């Protein structure tokens, strides 16, 4: 009884705190503070059509770098904790092979999904989407291969290479901002010309950075999936 009572009390107190929040928030009718500045100057400053991309990649670029680092740490921790033991042969459960339709269909779909992921992160500054969404789409393609073909294995060497090089280039682009534009300009996108507003080769380094982030996130999520999958078969 007492075991149920304490959680109940905690949930009720949380309810009153949240009630206070809910009743005190008035819906806002205009942008204020930093959001107003971003909305007014984002286009002329950075040349990106998608303001969320502008905030994620440039205005708050350091946060994104930290976030990619956290993702990398989580992936490394998972790989470390679930490291493969010696392969047990013949656990008794045999996997049924996937049907021909499923194999052919997934082989047809995987390149299309990967291309769609690349399209998402290359067009991140023009349309909704960006590195994280494109990376998730690429990881979904790997997930489809895992589900459709139980003998499918990812090429770890290629994945590690892509992941580490995209990380290194991401930091290098940040440092180039310091070198070219002077202090306070870490991860500035204006080291490349801004170009014509609304075309694909515009907004300085934003497409470049988002491509690197997309490759990194995609390979990291795919490796997390691979590690979680393990040697079940």
């Amino acid at each position: 009884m007492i075991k149920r009572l304490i959680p109940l009390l905690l949930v009720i107190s949380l309810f009153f705190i949240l009630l206070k929040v809910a009743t005190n928030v008035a819906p806002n009718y205009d942008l204020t503070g930093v959001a107003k500045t971003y909305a007014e100057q984002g286009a002329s400053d950075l040349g990106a059509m998608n303001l969320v991309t502008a905030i994620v990649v440039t205005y708050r670029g350091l946060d994104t770098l930290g976030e990619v680092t956290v993702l990398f740490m989580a992936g490394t921790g998972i790989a470390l904790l679930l490291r493969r033991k010696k392969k047990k042969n013949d656990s008794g459960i045999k996997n049924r092979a996937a049907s021909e339709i499923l194999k052919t269909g997934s082989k047809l779909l995987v390149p299309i999904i990967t291309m769609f992921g690349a399209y998402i992160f290359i067009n991140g500054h023009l349309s909704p989407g960006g590195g994280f969404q494109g990376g998730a789409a690429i990881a979904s393609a790997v997930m489809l291969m895992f589900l459709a073909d139980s003998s499918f294995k990812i090429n770890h060497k290629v994945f590690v290479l892509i992941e580490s090089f995209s990380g290194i280039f991401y930091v290098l682009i940040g440092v180039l901002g310091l070198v070219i534009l002077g202090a306070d300009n870490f991860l500035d996108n204006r080291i490349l010309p801004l170009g014509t507003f609304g075309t694909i080769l515009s907004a300085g380094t934003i497409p470049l950075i988002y491509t690197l982030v997309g490759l990194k996130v995609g390979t990291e999520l795919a490796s997390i999936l691979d590690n979680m999958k393990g040697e079940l078969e």
Partner: protein
Amino acid sequence: MEWYRILGSIITLIGSIFLFLGALGVFRMPDLYNRMQAGTKATTLGTILTLLGIGICHYEWIGQILVIIMFIALTNPISSHALARAAHFKGIPLTKGSVADKLKEKESTEVEVD
């Protein structure tokens, strides 16, 4: 009203009728395989027709809509096929009135060959 708008609306209406029939089939069919069959065939055709109707009404979007139709035509039957196969291997029974079970026959012949 232009003629293509009327044509697009009619096609969209036919598509939504198919979608409704698919939903009815999921509700009324006796076992899992029949339900899955209704929920896949009817909704695939219904979705394709609905999208096509919208594409005819707003003809500047027809390119994107053709790509979406291709995706649906690839994914929907394949995923349904995989689900039905998995359900069959899991041993979910067929309805009493069914007359043939080709997958079972195929499996038994395969075992004999091995």
